[in-house]
């Protein structure tokens, strides 16, 4: 497995700061945040050509593999630019959200599937993987809806981004849930979660090991299934936190993941 962190953790700081401290915390790679409303100093895919050289330089300078990009919107024009950026920069995976809301019912779900089908087929042409995750209160929100999406989307460029914090808040046990979807998992977003939500807790409470999710068991299942892809820490909402607090969240989580992998014989 390749351990990384989404640069959105360092949302208030520039991209080099995110690379510097993600590397210092011992990660193998990084997920680039392309969420301008949350991390305005990181990647905006509408202006990706201005940032491509810098991202490649930072990757090389800090020894961090470019594991993924998070561009959450399924807007076709925006995603086309994200695909172009990823292909040009060398980022193999794009993670997006499921789009439609739970309260849009079956019609919302059908529209999500149609959109993901079109985007996955477009991702194929770029040689990229498009991943979607179950998200609290979205059309794909739990294991049953994830399994339906898996059954209906047959593009080899489509994958599941399995995020245990959303599955936990859906009232499930992520250790059981990961076993059901692992065959199509191509990316893992990871963080801990206090309580069943709807919010996952404050950013410090989302550091792996501080919450209620059995992340030791979760990582063991990933290992037993032979999963060798990226596991990226994704902590949203640290915008107002000090640099040291962001560093602590990154480092504490990396230490926790390292021990989880050592405990199951993966490292």
């Amino acid at each position, binding site marked *: 497995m390749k351990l990384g962190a989404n640069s959105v953790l360092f949302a208030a700081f520039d991209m080099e700061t995110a690379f510097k401290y993600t590397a*210092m*915390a011992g990660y193998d790679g990084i997920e680039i945040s392309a969420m301008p409303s949350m991390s305005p100093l990181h990647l905006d895919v509408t202006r990706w050509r201005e940032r491509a050289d810098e991202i490649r330089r930072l990757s090389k300078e800090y020894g961090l593999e470019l594991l993924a990009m998070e561009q959450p919107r399924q807007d076709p024009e925006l995603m086309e630019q994200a695909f172009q950026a990823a292909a040009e920069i060398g980022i193999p995976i794009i993670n997006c959200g499921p789009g439609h809301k739970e309260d849009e019912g079956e019609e919302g779900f059908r529209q999500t599937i149609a959109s993901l089908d079109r985007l996955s087929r477009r991702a194929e042409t770029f040689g990229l993987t498009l991943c979607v995750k179950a998200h609290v209160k979205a059309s794909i929100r739990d294991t049953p809806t994830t399994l339906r999406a898996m059954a209906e989307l047959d593009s080899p460029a489509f994958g599941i981004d399995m995020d245990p914090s959303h599955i936990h808040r859906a009232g499930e046990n992520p250790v059981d849930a990961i076993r059901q979807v692992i065959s199509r998992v191509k990316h893992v977003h990871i963080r801990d979660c206090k309580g069943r939500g709807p919010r996952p807790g404050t950013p410090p409470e989302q*550091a*792996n090991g501080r919450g209620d999710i059995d992340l030791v068991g979760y990582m063991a299942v990933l290992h037993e299934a032979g999963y060798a892809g990226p596991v990226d820490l994704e902590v949203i909402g640290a915008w107002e936190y000090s640099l040291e607090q962001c560093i*602590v969240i990154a480092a*504490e989580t990396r230490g926790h993941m390292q021990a*989880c992998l050592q405990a199951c014989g993966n490292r």
Partner: protein
Amino acid sequence: MKLGANSVLFGGYDLETAFKYIAMAGYDGIELSAIPGMSEHLVIDRWQEIAPECKRLSEEFDLELLAMEQPWPDAEIMKPAFEAAKVLGIPVINCGPRGEAGNEDSLKERIEVLAGLAELAESYDVMLCVKAHVGSAIHNTPTTLRALEQITSPNFGCDFDPSHIYREGEDPVAALDAVMGRIRHIHLRDCVSRDMGERTLDANGNIRFQNMAPEMQINGRGKIDLVALMAVMHDHGYDGPVNLEIIGAKDYPLADCCVIAAESRGHMQACLQACGNR
């Protein structure tokens, strides 16, 4: 178990900085460094002046005062250290054994000195712990067992530090099992090699070993099986302090010290969760 960090990791910063970031990293408590030259934290010569600040910081940052490290096994320095510990409610004082490895006379002399200090500790109702230390008279499991056999005071315990045992060529997991009954404190860190590597002086005149940079000592980055080690502690019902002790970061930027503290705490937390302790 109570997870803590020795304030010496933040040796280049004041005591409040050490408390603030050790708390931020999620530790249960702190070990106060009374190590001259490496920190200006609990300075034994001025302990009465510093004690109220230690109490305030402990309350403000909700960190239990788990131990004090005062490395000199010398009665003149140890007496005020015991007094400070008693007043502050610090239950354990850790010191080094000193002496010379492989020298029988030195070992006997060190055991005698430590026995005397342990008797002194009894009068203050404080626990004196000593650890096997590379190059010292007590340096491995056999010499630790000798000391534990001969020092019978209930106020004497073993401070187990796997990084020293590992560098002695032993398996720390087996070694821990051998001395577990007398362990009253654990110093924890990882170690990338049994060989400390080339010895150099840095720009500030500090001794540096190639394989002992502070970031190499972060739990999980080295070769010690800390997952198994913490499982053995749990299996034996150990519920005392486990304090991260990283020497040599005095000149490090604050961010680097934060990484070392937080990554090690995350690793320890997962180790305890893996064996069902948390």
